[in-house]
């Protein structure tokens, strides 16, 4: 092939071959790009839907929490009100005392003022009032503080539906959640062992949501059983080097082995119609997965169930 025209013909053939192969490749690449775009859009949609589901579940939880919280608020409110009524009852005596005190230095008859003060001291039982006042005020302040904490916990829970990933300590989150549910859990034997553990990268509100769901299930399970001691156990402890373990267990009715594999399926519930959405454990599972953690369940009918959550502590990237 010494003729330059032959080289040119060979080059043109090779060029045409490259063109054809590239054209095929481009067609496939373009289709792949468009398919990928569609998948990304669908993934975004799914993430949005999941966020909506989690939020709906949070609102449902908030609704079911309300009754317990209302009861929790009622107790401090009752003694705050009682104390204020007592203070109101003492008010005329204190006003009389103040009136007499205001006359000091403005009257020529100090003797008479002194007598009136002594009479008031006895007739108005100022001694008793004086003894009562610090307790009344301290108890009222304590009640207000208690109400403030309950409201604050509830608000933290309800407004954290859009919270983002940050470094968080699990211990206060578990403690806050238990406090939020304290009214509903007070008739159970609670075994709580919460250790200081390494921080994790997570969403405060979402984790509270997961814990509430598991505690609500534990409560439901022990309520359906008839053991004299209804025990719910919450443990938080370090796992291996890079893990934190949170486990919630109960000595309730346990879970039928035939359904245990479906527990985390959306809309799966063993509760009667109207009592459960079937989304609690599905949402819990989604939350744990979002944190790149894992959740496992061990259960034996008639003995109880244990849900164990493992969170990674050194995971930085969040989806």
């Amino acid at each position, binding site marked *: 092939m010494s003729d330059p025209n032959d080289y040119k013909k060979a080059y043109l053939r090779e060029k045409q071959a490259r063109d054809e192969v590239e054209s095929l490749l*481009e067609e496939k*690449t373009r289709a792949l*790009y468009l398919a990928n775009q569609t998948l990304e859009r669908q993934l975004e949609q799914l993430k949005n839907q999941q966020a909506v589901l989690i939020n709906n579940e949070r609102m449902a939880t908030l609704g079911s929490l309300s009754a317990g919280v209302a009861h929790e608020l009622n107790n401090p409110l009752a003694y705050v009100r009682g104390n204020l009524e007592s203070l109101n009852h003492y008010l005329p005596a204190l006003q009389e005392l103040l009136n007499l005190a205001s006359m000091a230095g403005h009257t020529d008859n100090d003797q008479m003022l002194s007598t009136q003060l002594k009479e008031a001291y006895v007739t108005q039982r100022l001694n008793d009032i004086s003894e009562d006042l610090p307790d009344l005020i301290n108890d009222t302040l304590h009640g207000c503080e208690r109400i403030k904490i309950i409201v604050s916990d509830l608000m933290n829970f309800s407004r954290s539906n859009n919270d983002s990933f940050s470094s968080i300590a699990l211990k206060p989150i578990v403690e806050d959640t238990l406090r939020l549910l304290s009214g509903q859990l007070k008739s159970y034997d609670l075994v709580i062992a919460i250790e200081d553990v390494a921080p994790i990268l997570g969403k405060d509100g979402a984790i509270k949501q997961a814990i509430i769901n598991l505690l609500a299930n534990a409560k439901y399970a022990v309520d359906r059983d008839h053991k004299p001691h209804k025990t719910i156990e919450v443990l938080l402890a370090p796992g291996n080097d890079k893990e934190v373990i949170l486990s919630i267990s109960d000595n309730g009715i346990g879970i039928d082995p035939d359904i245990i594999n479906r527990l985390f399926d959306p809309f799966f519930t063993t509760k009667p119609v109207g009592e459960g959405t079937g989304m609690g454990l599905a949402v819990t599972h989604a939350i744990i997965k979002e944190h790149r953690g894992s959740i496992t369940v061990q259960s034996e009918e008639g003995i109880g169930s244990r849900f164990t959550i493992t969170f990674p502590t050194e995971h930085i990237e969040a989806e």
Partner: protein
Amino acid sequence: MRGVVFRGLEELAIETIGMQEWDELLETYAPQGRVYVSPTAYPDEELFALAQGVASKLDKPLTEVLAIFGQSLFGFLAKKHVGISSKFSSFEELVVSIDSVIHMEVKKLYDEPNLPSITTTIENDKTIILKYKSNRKLCFCAEGLLHGAAQHYNRVLRIEHPQCMHEGADHCVLILHLD
């Protein structure tokens, strides 16, 4: 730079300096056995060296060769991607769509992180102001591409280049005057 641009240069070089000269340039400036295929990325320096080689062989300044190359590259790309070039019914339509349509099409085909940024403003029915910014500073090639596009749509185009990255500006300004 993607192989598709090298292939455009290859086509122009074979037409203007011939296969043997192009082969010599490849021997000198490209690794042994190099074959350019459109989706593959090759070093920018290789393209600049080959373009410089073509300029030397044609005894023309590099800027002039880049302009000629740009003009020829437009025809090469338009022929290769008829589906894209047929989307535009006029030169003006094509120019204002460079970033939003053409570069989007490029992204579909190639994972190209160094696309130039191009913004356009239509001043009036005969003048378009185009701002070009690229770390490759291939503004002369962009001028050639614009001339190639004008030729494709049978328009007479004159380009003013009052501000240039080669003179230290942050971006080039090209004023396109149409007939």
